[in-house]
């Protein structure tokens, strides 16, 4: 049972007080370029996921706190949550590093 802390309201609680929203930082192609999105780009957006074994950036909703979405960096093998940050923040550096490995 993960213990999660919201970076916005500091609410700390069980994973059941939060709601998981899947991989973070997925760009919705039609938001920026509605007319020129190929089938493959749309597929990648809808279905293709990094699904790494290790550091994963993901979205969580602070359901029993402030009701806001935020990002977390979690290791999918150890479950360690190393960082939480705002939903509007850019991907942190350690995520890029992990991706390169």
């Amino acid at each position, binding site marked *: *049972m993960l213990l999660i802390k919201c970076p916005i309201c500091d609410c700390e609680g069980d994973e059941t007080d939060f709601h*998981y929203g899947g991989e973070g930082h997925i760009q919705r192609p039609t938001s920026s370029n509605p007319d020129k999105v190929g089938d493959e780009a749309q597929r990648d957006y*809808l279905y293709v*996921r990094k699904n790494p*074994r290790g550091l994963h950036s993901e979205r969580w909703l602070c359901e029993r706190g402030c009701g806001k979405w935020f990002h977390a960096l979690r290791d*999918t*093998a*150890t479950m360690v949550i190393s960082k939480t940050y705002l939903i509007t923040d850019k991907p942190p550096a350690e995520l890029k590093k992990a991706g390169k490995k």
Partner: protein
Amino acid sequence: MQKYSIFTLARNAANYHKGWGLAWRSPEPKSEYDIVIIGAGGHGLATAYYLAKRHNLTNVAVVEKGWLGGGNTGRNTTIIRSNYLQDESAAIYELSRSLYEGLAQELNYNVMFSPRGLFMLCMTEHELRGFKRHAHANRLSGIESRMVSAEEVKRKIPILNVSPTARYPLLGALYQPRGGTARHDAVAWGYARGADNLGVDILQNCAVTGITRRGGKVTGIDTVKGHIKAKKVAIVTAGSTTLLGDMAGLKLPIESVTLQACVSEPIKPVLDVVIMAGTVHGYMSQSDKGELVIGGGADEYNNYSQRGSFPAIEHTITSLAELFPIIRRLKMLRQWAGIVDMTGDRSPIIGKTDVDGLYLNCGWGTGGFKSIPGSGLVFADTIANDRPHPIAEPFGLNRFAEGRLIDESIAAGVAH
């Protein structure tokens, strides 16, 4: 192959069973194989078996990072059924189910396929309508499956709570008389023994660390025991598919999550059929050894830990305790989890990839034990002939770009 039968058993008994040989060898890897299958789960082993048996391809290795059958094949709740709604699904699951009927004889290994009947309970009008649709579709595709009344369900499952004041009154069930269970480990072991006997090398404790390619074509694999050349490579690694896909540069519509299960202590028979209850997300059967085998939901977050969080299993047990009030005084003996590979439409992927000579069989998610024989058969055919078997064809990777999803979530809720 040493034949298994009551006679050989009796003969060996005289000698205190000292005469039994290995069910499978533990060979050293050769430097090259025609075909390498990554993953010695049920699907990988069945594929190897059918390659050898039906296509005479025996220069084949199944490469396994741990012990064979140790993935989801060795930890699932063993439900077998084929009453799926979509034509494509019904075709492959029914092929598979029918192969289960003769599997013990085919493999000379008793996999204890037990078609004792499977009930999918309907507890809301909406669910009832959905299952009626299943029953009609199944009947027209030639699958034995029908709706039964609440009274009939109660007759078959006396311990079910059908009180009119129950939270969800029972409205009936979708019944597949020849759905049931099999002994999961035996399926892996039987295929392993069969494949090994036909000359396939099963390489355990041999994790794959890389997939080598040249010019868009696969050339072999790197393993902890060194490089192995191969003309064709098939990835059949369930929850680990993304990691293998990354080695070959595949972009995959897959997420790995933990799916949970538990067993009660063994008790004398109380449940002779398999039940699934979508509205309350629970399913249960009783094994031949006596435990109630209980399948739970999946945790929502990506997870490679092979252990789950408590709420999912709690949710399931809470529901089952409502459906079967007598279980409240029984005890949970063990809980565990497996890493399942969920695709964008929750249906499997079987077929070729963009890399020449690289094949993929994955995405069985929460429900691929039942499909092991059928999937092995059509996948072997696909690899041997380098084109999708007709039953496998709809399950190609390309469907995600086309939007041609195969979505089974319609009424069942749970997909086991």
